[in-house]
């Protein structure tokens, strides 16, 4: 099966999930107890304004027509108008998306750079002091809530030692990296233990796989064994584990952006809830859902590209 057929099949499989996500996002407004227009605009809103919002959201139509219109709008990239910003939701999200994406990319790079070498060290010397140490530290950082970790990093590195800024995003590459360092470290500290746990286990499994055992009996040195056989498989395991945990990572950005006052879409969804800005909540939830699906698809493709045994089927 070639790449195109694989892609087509994979995209077809995504359709029901896509439909489900759109349906859930659609229901966010429709399931609000009481009159959604009244809840969004507040008790002092005039009847004209309420009626205008109902028409804008299509709340006066039969439910199936509402859904049709909703899907049609999404396909045209129209997510409605923000109640709070009084602007197009898509515009606001697109403005803030680069912040969240930079944070995610920075955190993933940092997490991989830390967890891959540590997992290899722990797996190769299973049961040794280094293995114990890596596992102990992972268990410890896994138990730390991201918001608490972030605030403590702020106190230490921004208040006491003043090495990093307290909040904001910055302009230009170096400035952005400087602003994102503490947030990215916060996410890394929660993501790394999850990666290490799974990666260490799969590396140990790989090291006892028949082909590796055979290479060992052939007299291949442990160093070459690791480079030739374990690393490649370990890399693939990392890709899979990252794909599985991308949802967890996105959730992490919500908390971390809020703690560090980063102008990304994670912090925006939290403030939109207190502002009862439902079109904005819908837009961000949709974007998050789509990103996760997209990243899972990319993971599958990357996996197939890395592993010669996986044909696209």
């Amino acid at each position: 099966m070639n790449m195109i057929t694989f892609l087509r099949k994979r995209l077809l499989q995504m359709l029901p999930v896509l439909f489900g996500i759109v349906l859930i996002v659609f229901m966010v407004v429709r399931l609000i107890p009481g009159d959604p227009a009244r809840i969004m605009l507040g008790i002092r809103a005039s009847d004209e304004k309420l009626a205008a919002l109902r028409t804008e959201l299509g709340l006066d139509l039969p439910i199936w027509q509402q859904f049709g219109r909703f899907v049609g709008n999404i396909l045209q990239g129209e997510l409605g108008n923000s109640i709070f910003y009084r602007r197009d939701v898509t515009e606001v999200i697109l403005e803030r998306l680069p912040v969240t994406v930079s944070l995610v990319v920075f955190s993933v790079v940092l997490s991989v750079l830390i967890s891959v070498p540590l997992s290899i060290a722990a797996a190769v010397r299973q049961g040794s002091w280094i293995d114990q140490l890596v596992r102990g530290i992972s268990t410890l950082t896994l138990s730390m809530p991201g918001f608490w970790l972030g605030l403590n990093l702020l106190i230490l590195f921004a208040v006491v030692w003043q090495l990093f800024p307290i909040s904001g995003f910055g302009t230009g590459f170096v400035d952005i990296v400087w602003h994102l360092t503490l947030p990215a470290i916060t996410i890394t500290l929660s993501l790394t233990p999850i990666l290490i746990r799974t990666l260490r286990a799969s590396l140990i499994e790989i090291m006892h796989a028949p082909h590796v055992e055979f290479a060992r009996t052939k007299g291949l040195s442990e160093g070459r064994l690791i480079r030739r056989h374990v690393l490649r498989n370990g890399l693939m395991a990392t890709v899979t584990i990252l794909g599985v945990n991308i949802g967890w990572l996105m959730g992490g950005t919500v908390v971390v952006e809020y703690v560090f006052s980063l102008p990304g879409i994670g912090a925006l969804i939290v403030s939109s809830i207190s502002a009862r800005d439902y079109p904005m909540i819908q837009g961000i939830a949709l974007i998050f859902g789509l990103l996760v699906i997209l990243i899972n698809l990319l993971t599958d493709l990357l996996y197939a590209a890395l592993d010669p045994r996986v044909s696209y089927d």
Partner: protein
Amino acid sequence: MTEAAIVAPSDRPRPELAAMRPSVWRRHGGLITGAGILALILLASIFANYLSPYDPLQQNLRNTMQLPGWDHPFGTDNFGRDIFSRVLHAAKLDLMIGFLCVLFPWILGSVLGGIAGYFGGIADTIIMRVVDTFSAFPFLVMVIGIIAILGPGLISMYIALTLAGWSMYARIVRAEVLVVKKAEYVLAARALGFGHGRIMFRHILPNVITPTIIFAMTDIVLVILSTTSLSFLGLGVRPPTAEWGIMISEARGFILTAWWMVTLPGLAIVLVGLALSLFGDGVAKWLRERG
């Protein structure tokens, strides 16, 4: 161990026991430590009223933001409330929320996964497509979306975490049921004409439950981190209730002046997380060894 017990002379049990101790400790040290810390935390939460030196809600505006010291082991907050007493009182609430937010998804997911695996066909297809959809959503975003619908609060948080968390349990149970339902004892039960309910609960359930418990043990750490995060974001338990996430959230405005308001309540969460991780890993290991 059993062999040793058989050959050991019955009048000399002491050396055998002494030899056993380090090996039990080595194999189940994490489990014992975790269980010990958990027991202490549980006791502290139950007897919070007697153990805490002050009333957790008592304000004292002449004694605000005191550094930790002899009078106030964790210091005082911006209202002059004793942080140590608040941390102790919050334990009961936080532990209960964590436990229920694992119990509800566990029940819902196991029932739906059981139905999907046992009956197969159209029920399986529908339930598993729903599972796919629910697991495609980023966990916290889904939780926040549901809380957006229902409005922030404790009940909303229970519902949101149940709806966001059940799908993994459904997956696990379905996979196990698919294997077990072809086992001879189940086929025999069916041949005997037992009803579906009896087969599911008496024959299949006890044999598929172990992996879900192992998963729940790691899940509960993440759930407690999530529930405190939600309260921190202002989407879960509301102030002035003493709850770890809220306490840290209220302290956020004072990081320039009062580090202890942030750092010390968080240590409670870390301690619970650590104890649960050790305990959970230990139980999982023990269950796997038992087979």
